Structures are given as C-alpha cells and as structure tokens.
C-alpha cells in the first residue's frame, strides 16, 4: 500500500476518532465525546447500509428500522428490568443477542418481500415497511407510543464495562465501529462479496453463470440489518431515550446521505460521511436556525456535481499528488 495523502488523511481521521474522549476531557468539554459518540454509532449504521447499497446496489430506504429495533430492545428490556425487577432483561449481552435475532428476522421478512422487486419498487417498498415499523412503535402505548421511553439505566455489562461512564460507551462504540469496518472489508473481498458486487453491475450475467442472486442478496440484506441493529442498541444507550423518531423515514434518508457524502461503495466512505454530516449539522445550525435551507440545496449540488463524495475528492487529490511527485522526481534528476 502506498503512503498517499488519502491514506494519511483517513488514518488521521481514525486515530483522532480514537483520541476524542482524551481530548474532550483535557479541554473539559465532555459535550464533544457525546457528539462524536453519535457519529460513531451512525457510522456503524452507514457502514452496514453501504454493504447493500454501496456494494450491492440495493437502494434500501428503510434502513433506520434496525436502529429502531435495536433501540427498542434496550428500551423495552431496561423498562422491564427497572419496573418489574426482571434483572436479566437489563443485561447488555442479552440486549445485543436479542437485537441481532429480531433484526435478522425483520431483515429476512422485509428482504424476502422487497428483493423480489427492483429499482424504484424496491425503494418504495423498503420505505413503506420502515414506515410500518414506525407506526407500530407509535401505536404501542405500553412502551410510550409517540412519546417513547426514557431509559432509567443503561445496558448492564455485568461489571465488565460501566456504560454510565460516557467514555466507556464511546470506546464500546469505537470497538463496534472497528469490528464492522473489519467485517465490511472481509465480506466485500470474499467470494460472497464479489458475487454481491457482481449482481450490482450485471444481475442477468450473475444469474446465468449460476449464482442464486436472490439468496445472496437476502443474506447480505440480513447481515446489514444485524449490524445496524447493534448500532441501535448503542444508540439507545447513548441517548438514554427511545422513541419512534429513531426510525423515522428521514433517519433512513440521513443514512443514505452519509454514504453518498462520504463516498459510496468504499470502505471508509460511510465513516467520513457520518462525521462530515454531523459536523455540518452542528456548524450550519450554529449559523442559522433555518440550516436546512442551506443543507437541502447542498445535497442537490453534491448529487449533481460531486458524485464520488469526499472519498472521491481524496482519490482526485491522490492522483494530483502522484503526478506532482513524478514530475518533481523527473525535475530533480
């Protein structure tokens, strides 16, 4: 691997993400730990969506469903642990396992129906199913309905990890992000991942050389759902609050924006995008209350003009750097 500016910048980004709590503590601004913690969680969500959207070409507009599922698993679990004293329901390992199981089941059902269709149908159907889950949460009065649930405690990791400390939670998020990046890397470069990427560029060809395209896609769809479900578990712990808006359809849109902003179908693109998205939101909403008046058209311009996202710009920077260093070498000799 060559030591290009792009690799340096991405390495720097990941290292600084790892150092955020230390920096925030040293300047006594714990707010930044919380802000970047949110970035990490949304990065995990975006990385998982990128698996199917970026590499597989499946434009799912309902990926926030799994954030909701993971969140509600924690919300409902701690609710019963607190109200009814059912201790095991507050256990973090159980939260993660249940979130995995429920996300996988939801992904299996949504995927089995929506993957039968293509293109614009797929977009509309995933959106519609996400809305269905949203309304189920709104209609479930026992767990707060529209208002949601406040968490009186965070997931309990049996003394291994104390999540009431924001820094511990931050590093748990960071560990999960690194794991999901590693998984994403391994998966997309495996035979399975190659098949998925193949279906993106030419589905008919993959079918005719004998790949069960539907089954491959469904498995990828479920894996993406599972990873995002775990992000949901982390998200509920981060906000100490669960309500239907975690899976509002605009959340799914946000995840897509992060991927495209950062660089679609690249390993680190979703992370770059999530960080850039939340920084932009912070920055613009600091300037004006009507920040979406700027952000909306910006999106339009990014779509029209900057198709590779930020990672694409870094690639362009690399190309320029390469030309520059070659030229310099020639001149020096």
């Amino acid at each position, binding site marked *: 691997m060559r030591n290009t500016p792009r690799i340096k910048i991405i390495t720097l980004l990941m290292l600084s993400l790892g150092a955020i709590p230390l920096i925030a503590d040293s300047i006594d601004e714990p707010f930044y730990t919380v802000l970047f913690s949110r970035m990490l969680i949304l990065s995990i969500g975006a990385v998982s969506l990128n698996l199917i*959207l970026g590499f597989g070409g499946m*434009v799912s*507009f309902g990926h926030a469903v799994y954030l909701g599922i993971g969140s509600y698993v924690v919300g409902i679990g701690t609710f019963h642990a607190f109200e009814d004293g059912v201790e095991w329901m507050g256990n973090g390992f159980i939260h993660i396992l249940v979130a995995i199981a429920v996300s996988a089941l939801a992904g299996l059902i949504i995927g089995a*129906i929506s993957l*039968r*269709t293509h*293109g*614009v*149908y797929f*977009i*509309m*159907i995933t*959106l*519609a*199913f996400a*809305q*269905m889950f949203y*309304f*189920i949460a*709104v*209609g*479930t*009065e*026992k767990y707060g309905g529209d208002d949601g649930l406040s968490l009186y405690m965070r997931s309990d990791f049996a003394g291994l990890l104390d999540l009431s400390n924001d820094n511990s939670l931050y590093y748990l998020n960071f560990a999960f992000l690194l794991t999901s990046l590693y998984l994403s890397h391994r998966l997309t470069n495996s035979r399975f991942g190659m098949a998925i990427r193949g279906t993106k560029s030419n589905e008919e060809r993959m079918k005719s050389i004998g790949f069960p395209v539907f089954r491959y896609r469904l498995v990828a769809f479920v894996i993406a759902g599972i990873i995002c479900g775990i992000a949901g578990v982390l998200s509920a712990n981060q906000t100490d609050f669960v309500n239907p808006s975690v899976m509002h*359809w605009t959340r799914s*849109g946000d995840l*897509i*924006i992060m991927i*495209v902003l950062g660089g*679609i179908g690249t390993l680190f693109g979703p992370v770059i995008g999530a960080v850039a998205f939340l920084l932009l939101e912070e920055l613009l909403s600091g300037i004006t209350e*009507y*920040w*979406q*008046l700027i*952000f*909306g*058209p*910006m*999106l*339009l311009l*990014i*779509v*029209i003009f900057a198709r590779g996202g930020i990672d694409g710009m870094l690639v362009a920077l690399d190309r320029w750097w390469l030309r520059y260093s070659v030229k310099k070498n020639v001149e020096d000799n």
Partner: protein
Amino acid sequence: MNWILLLEQTLNGFQLGILLFLLAAGLTLIFGIMDLINLAHGSLYMMGAYFAATFTQWTDSFILGALLALPACMLFGIILEKIALRTLYTRSHLDQVLATFGLILFLNEFVRLIWGPIGLDIPLPQMLSGSVELFFGIHYPAFRLVIIAVGILVAFLLYLLVSKTKVGMLIRAGASNRQMVSALGININLLYTVVFGLGAVLAGLAGLMAGPIMTVEIGMGEGILIITFVVIVIGGVGSIRGAFVAALIVGFIDTVGRSFLPDILGIFVSNDIADTAAPAISSMLIYILMALILAIKPQGLFPPKGA
C-alpha cells in the same frame, strides 16, 4: 356492528382514497414518463394547502382561494422542474432519491421561514361547513362529499385527457417509449414540463382539499406520500387506472380498519388485549396488503403495457 358508523367510515375511506388517487396519479405519471422518483411530490401537496390558506385569507373566500392556489401550484411545480429536477431524469434512482430528499428539507424550511412554524387553519364557507342528510337520517359533512365529487370528476377528466386527446396520446406514448417519441419530432422537454405541471396541480388540489379537514402544517405531505407509494406499488407503477383502484382500496382498508379492528379483534381475544393491540395492528394493514399483492403479482395489479 354499527351500520351507520360503517357507512360513515366507508365514505371517509373513500374520501381518503380520492386524496391518495390525486397524489398517486401525478406521481405515477411522472415516474412512468420521466423515470423520476420524486420524493418532493408530498411537498407540492403541502404547498397547495399553504397557497390555499394564504389566498383564502386574502380573498376571504375558500372557493376563490382554491381557484387561485391551483395555478400557483402549477407554476411552482414548473419552476421546480426547470430549476432542479430536469437534470435528474437521466440519473440513477439513488441520485434522484437524494436530490429530491434535499428538496424536501429545503421546502420544509422555506415554508417555516415564510409561514412560520405554527400550523394554519383554512376556514370553510358557510355552505360547505355544515353536514348533509343522506338516506336513513345519516348526517355527513358536506365538504367531505365535495372532496369525493371533485375527485371523481377529476378522475373522469384525467381519463378523457389521457385516452381521448392528443396530449394524452403523447403521454401514453412517452410512458411506453421515450426515445421513440422524441425521435418522431415531439418536443419531449415540453411534454415533461406539461406532465410535471399536471402532477403538481393534482397534488396541490389534494393538499388544498385536505387543508380544511386536517391542519395545514410543515411536513403534512410526507406521511401521505409514503401511503401514496404503497398505492402505486399495489396499482402498478405508471398506471393511472391501477392508481385509482389501489387508492380506493387502501383508503378504505386504512380507515375502516382503524375504526373496526378493535371490535373484530375483540371477537377472538379479550377486549383488553384487543384495545392495546388494535392501534398497532391497524396501522400495519395496508402494508400487509401490499406484501400480499406483491407476493402474488410483483408488478402490481395493473402493470402498464409495454413496461
């Protein structure tokens, strides 16, 4: 079971179906002809309601306000098409989704800036605000009947326009083969603008008729847009006839399901469980219907010919 309530709810469902049809007809045409998935179609619905609210205030008459709001919507839609959407026709669906998502953010904030964050009410004139006595002494709000009547009229006009006129012929031709239409010397860009303007007027009409029943507020078009997607998926993308049938089915099932599901569930399980589960289950009904129809006919009920 309460028959009067059932009849009332059937009419309500019919009226929701009409609103859904007005939105779905435009959206499905825009998709069928320009191959554009326009998330901001719900924003046109919202603009229709806001325009009507403002014009009603200026003119002191809902009828005048509505008549002024329609051309305003068309103009707004055409400007939107010319500035922002035109570049998206050749792009991937992902690009279209993102760009029109950005448009929604912009338009919501734009409305907040101009009309403020608080919802508006559209006052109805005396003759529309009362209720009409139907048969068997059933009273039903006059304005909802007007919505149903207007919707059926528009559906009929749309049918005439699409199947009997030159423009309609071009629209049908554009839906089945765009390149061929432009190769035959038709100004396809003009056709796009006409279709988009038509879609904007239909969406605006739905919005301004929904305004007096619900509140006119920011984001009012988003929830109904997603139900419209369900309608289009059930009816078959690009098919106006499919949109009409599916809109009525979805409107009926959603409305009637919400009011009768607790009773129906109560037959099978205890009333307590029925009362807690019903709200969640009734909101699932239309999506379950969509899943069932897709399982049987993945192209929807009325897939357009040649697609």
